[in-house]
C-alpha cells in the first residue's frame, strides 16, 4: 500500500494568497488595496502640509509645484487631505466588517442548521430589513445617537451583518444536507459543536468572499454618510466630506472632487477585484481535489 506522505505545502492562507496574486484581477486588486493601506498608515508622516492649515490667499487654486492637486475653498492642500481622507473610513469599516461577518455568519449558520420556526421568523425579519433602502435605518440611528466613529462602527456592523445572515444560511444549508453533518447529528454532538467543527470550516470560503464584498459596500455607505454630513465631522479629512465640500466649486477647482473620487474608487475597485480573485481561487479549492 502506498503511504507516500502528502505533498508538502504551506499554510492554506499563504497558498490562497499566492494563487490570488497569480491572477491578474488578484494582482491588481491586492496592489490597490495594499497601496491604500500603506497610505493610510504612513500618511501622517509623509503628508506635505497640515490638513487643517488654511491659507485664504490661495483658495481653490489649481495644481502648482507647492500644491500638486491644488487647494480647496479654505485654501487647504487637497493632496494632504486626500492622503489622510481614507484613514477614518478604513478604520471604521475595517473594524465593522469583521464584526458584521462574525455575527451575521454565526447566526446564519446556526439558523441553517436548526431550521424550523426560528429560521422562518429570523429570515422574515431579515427580509423586512433588506426591503428598506439601506441608508434609511442608518440615518435614523445616527440622528438618535449622534455621528462619530464610536457610533458608526457598531451601526454599520449591525446593518451590514444582516445580508450576511442570508448568505451564511444558504451556504450552511448546502453543507447541512451532506452526510458528515448527519453523521455528527447521529453521534449526538451539541448543535454548537456541529456549527464549529463541521459547518464553519466549510462555509468560511463563502463568508470570506462575502466579507470582501461587504467591505466595499460599507466603504461606499460610510462615504455616503460623510457626504450627507452624518459621518466624519469637519475639519477631519474624509473623502465623502471632501466631495461634499468641493462639489459646489467643481467648475472652478475640479481636482477637489476628482482626487477624493479617484482615491475612493480605486480602493473599492481594488477590494472588488480582490474579492473576485479570492472567490475564483477558493472555487478551485485544493482540499477537495486529490493531490497529484
Amino acid at each position: 500500500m502506498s503511504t507516500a506522505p502528502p505533498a508538502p505545502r504551506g499554510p492554506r492562507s499563504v497558498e490562497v494568497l499566492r494563487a490570488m496574486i497569480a491572477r491578474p484581477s488578484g494582482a491588481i486588486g491586492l496592489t490597490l488595496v495594499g497601496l491604500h493601506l500603506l497610505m493610510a498608515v504612513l500618511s501622517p508622516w509623509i503628508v506635505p502640509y497640515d490638513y487643517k492649515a488654511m491659507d485664504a490667499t490661495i483658495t481653490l487654486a489649481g495644481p502648482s509645484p507647492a500644491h500638486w492637486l491644488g487647494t480647496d475653498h479654505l485654501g487647504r492642500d487637497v493632496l494632504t487631505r486626500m492622503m489622510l481622507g481614507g484613514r477614518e473610513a478604513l478604520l471604521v469599516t475595517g473594524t465593522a466588517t469583521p464584526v458584521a461577518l462574525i455575527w451575521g455568519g454565526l447566526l446564519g449558520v446556526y439558523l441553517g442548521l436548526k431550521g424550523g420556526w426560528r429560521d422562518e421568523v429570523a429570515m422574515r425579519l431579515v427580509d423586512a430589513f433588506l426591503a428598506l433602502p439601506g441608508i434609511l435605518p442608518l440615518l435614523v440611528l445616527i440622528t438618535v445617537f449622534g455621528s462619530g466613529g464610536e457610533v458608526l462602527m457598531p451601526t454599520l456592523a449591525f446593518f451590514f451583518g444582516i445580508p450576511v445572515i442570508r448568505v451564511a444560511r444558504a451556504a450552511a444549508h448546502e453543507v447541512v444536507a451532506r452526510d458528515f453533518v448527519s453523521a455528527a447529528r447521529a453521534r449526538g454532538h451539541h448543535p454548537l459543536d456541529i456549527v464549529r467543527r463541521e459547518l464553519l470550516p466549510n462555509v468560511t470560503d463563502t463568508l470570506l468572499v462575502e466579507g470582501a464584498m461587504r467591505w466595499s459596500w460599507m466603504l461606499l455607505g460610510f462615504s455616503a454618510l460623510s457626504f450627507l454630513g452624518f459621518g466624519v465631522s469637519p475639519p477631519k479629512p474624509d473623502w465623502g466630506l471632501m466631495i461634499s465640500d468641493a462639489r459646489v466649486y467643481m467648475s472652478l477647482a475640479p481636482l477637489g472632487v476628482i482626487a477624493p473620487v479617484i482615491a475612493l474608487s480605486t480602493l473599492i475597485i481594488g477590494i472588488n477585484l480582490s474579492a473576485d480573485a479570492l472567490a475564483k481561487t477558493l472555487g478551485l479549492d485544493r482540499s477537495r481535489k486529490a493531490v497529484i
Partner: protein
Amino acid sequence: MAGTPPLIDIRKLCVGFRGRAGAILPVLHEVDLTVCRGESIGIVGESGSGKSTLALAAMGYLKHGLQKISGDVIYDGAEMFGRSPADLARIRGGQLGLIPQNSGQALTPTMRIGTQIREALHLHCAMSEGEHATRARDLLAQVRLPDPEAILRRYPHELSGGQQQRVAIAMALAGEPDALLLDEPTTGLDVTTQAHILELLRELARVRNMAMVYVSHDLGVIARVCDRVQVLYAGETVLEGPTRAVLREPAHPYARGLLASIPRLGEQTLPRALDGRPPGPNGPREGCAFAPRCALATQDCRAATPPMIEGGADQMTRCLYPDRVDEITGDQAGNAPHGCAEGSPCALDLAEVSIRYDRPGLFDRLRGAPRPPATVDGIDLHLRQGETIGLVGESGSGKSTILKAIAGLLPPASGQITLGDGTALPAAVETRRPDQLRRIQMIFQNPDDSLNPRQSVGEILAQPLRLYFGLRDKALRDRAVALLDTVRLGAPYLERRPGQLSGGEKQRVAVARAFAAGPEIVLCDEITSALDVSVQAAVLDLLNDLKAAHKTAFVFVSHDLTVVRALSDRVAVLYQGRICEFGPAAAVYGAPSHPYTAVLLNAVLTPDPDHAPRLMAEDVLELSPPARGCPFQRRCPVKCGTICDTDAPPARETGDGHVIRCHIPLDELCAKQTGEPPKS
C-alpha cells in the same frame, strides 16, 4: 467480422495531463481499441484506470485538462482529432451516440421529454418538424417504453431511473447511430431495471447492427452484453480477448483477481480482495504496472513493461506468465463469514415501526382527508448480538429510511425501538442519552459525503473519541492510531485529508470512525456501492473481521443481493417499505421465495457468460405503496387474484424463522419457482 474495416480504430493512443509540477502525466498509455459494426466491446477497469477517457476519446473528446500526446483515433476511416468542429458536431450524437452514466442528470429537468427528443431529432435528422412527433414516438416505442404519448409530455423527474435511462437511449438512437458508447449505462439502477435495460441494448445492437462500446466496472454487465473484453489497468490494456475466455480462464493475474473479488449468489465465502491499490499517474512507468500487487511477479516483471503476447484462448495479455495465472487461485478461497451463535442475547428490537415522510397540512386535517399509507410500515426486526441482518430491496423500498429511524435521524410515526437491555430508545436523536447514542453508529453510503473535507483523518476520528470518552492529546492520538490500524491503514494517515485518499481508504476511515465509539450496533447504508469491486471485497472482509473481534451487530442495507448474501446471517426483503420475506440468508436466497424475492434473484447478473437473468416484471414507477392488500400487487408476476388487492398477505413460516408474506401457499410458490423454465 474479418474483412470489414473497423468502425472505431484507436491506435497507440496516449493521453495525459499537465501535473502541478509541470510534467505531463499519462492517463492512457499506448492503448488500442478496435470495434467493428455489429460488435460489442467491453472496457473494464477500476476507477482511475482510464476507461471512461478511452471511450470519450473515441468521440474525439477529452475532458478539460487532458491532452492527446500521441496515437490515432480513427472513426469510419478518418482521424477524429483532426476534424472540424462542424464535422464533429455532425458525428457526435449522430453517427456516434453516447449514453452517459446517470442519464437522469443528463436530461434537462425543466424540459418535457418530447421537447428534448425533438431537439435531438432537429440536430441530427433531416426531416420536417411535422415528422418529428411521429419519429419521437417511434423511438420511445423502440426502447419499449409503455405509452410513449404520455411519456413525451412528462418531465424527467416524473420518470423512474430505468425510464430515464430508456429515454437517454432513445435520444442516442435519434441520429440513427452506427456506434454507441455506453459509460456505465446501468450503474445506479436497480437489479431488475438493469437487467431489462441490458436486454434492450442487446436487442437494439443486434437489430441495428451497431458497434457498441460498454464501459463498466461490473463484469456481470460485460458478461451479459459483450463479445470481447478489454481490461485496462493504470491506463494500459493488460488483457484483451473474447468475453467467454476472459471470464472463464483469464490470462492476466489482474483479471483473475478482479473476478475473485466479485461476490456471487451461490458462494458461502466472502469475495477475495485484491491487495494494494493501482499506481497513480505520477508513478514511475517501469516494469509491469500490476507487479506490486501480483503474486506471480518476478524480477523480470519489474525490469521492463511486458509486451502484449498470446495468452491462449484467443486472448492477448500483458503478462510474462499467462500459463501460470491459474496457479494463484488455488489457496485463495475467500474468508468464511463469521456467523452469530444461536440464541445470542438481543441487541436491538424493532416492534411495529412505521415511518412517514408526509405531514398533513392544516387544511387536510380539517377536511379529514385520508392519509396516504405510511412510507415504511409494520417493521418487526430482532437483531441479536454479533448478528448481521441484511435489508435488500430496490431503490425506494425504505431500506435507508429504516436505518435513519434506528439512528434517530428520522423519528418513526409509531412503533418502538428497544435496545438489548430492554431500555426503550427515545425516537429523536436529540432526546437520546450519550450512552445510548454511543451504542448505535452509522456508516454512510458515500465516503466523499460522509467525511468532512476540511478535517484531517485525525480530527475525523477525534470527534467520537472526544464526545463519548473525553479523550485528549496523547490518549486521543494513540486511540486514533490504533483505530487506523484495525482498518488496515496506519499512523501516516492521521494528517491526511479525505481529498487525498482513495475511495476505499475513505470508506475505511468512515468504518474506523464508527468503531471509535465502541458500538454494539453498526448501521451500514449501502457502504460499498460507491466502491470498486476489488475495494468492496476488502471492505466486506474488514467488516467481517471487526464483527468477529467486537461481537458487533450489523444492519446492512444494500440493493446488491450478492453483497448482502456474502455478509448477512439473516435477510429481510423489503418492497415499498414492507417486509415481504425474512429469514436466514440461505433460506431467503433458496426456494421457496416470495414472488418479489424471486424477481430480484432472477435479475442478478453474474460474471458468467452462460448465465442469463430471468426477467419477470417490467419496471414501473411506483411512488407510494398501495393503500390495501399486498404491497407487491401491482408488479407481481404470479398474482393470484383480487385477494392480493384487498387483504394483507398472511405470514407463512417455513420453519427456522423463515417467513414469507404471500397469499400463495408455500408449496405452490416452490413449484412455481423451480418448475418455471428460464425465459431467455
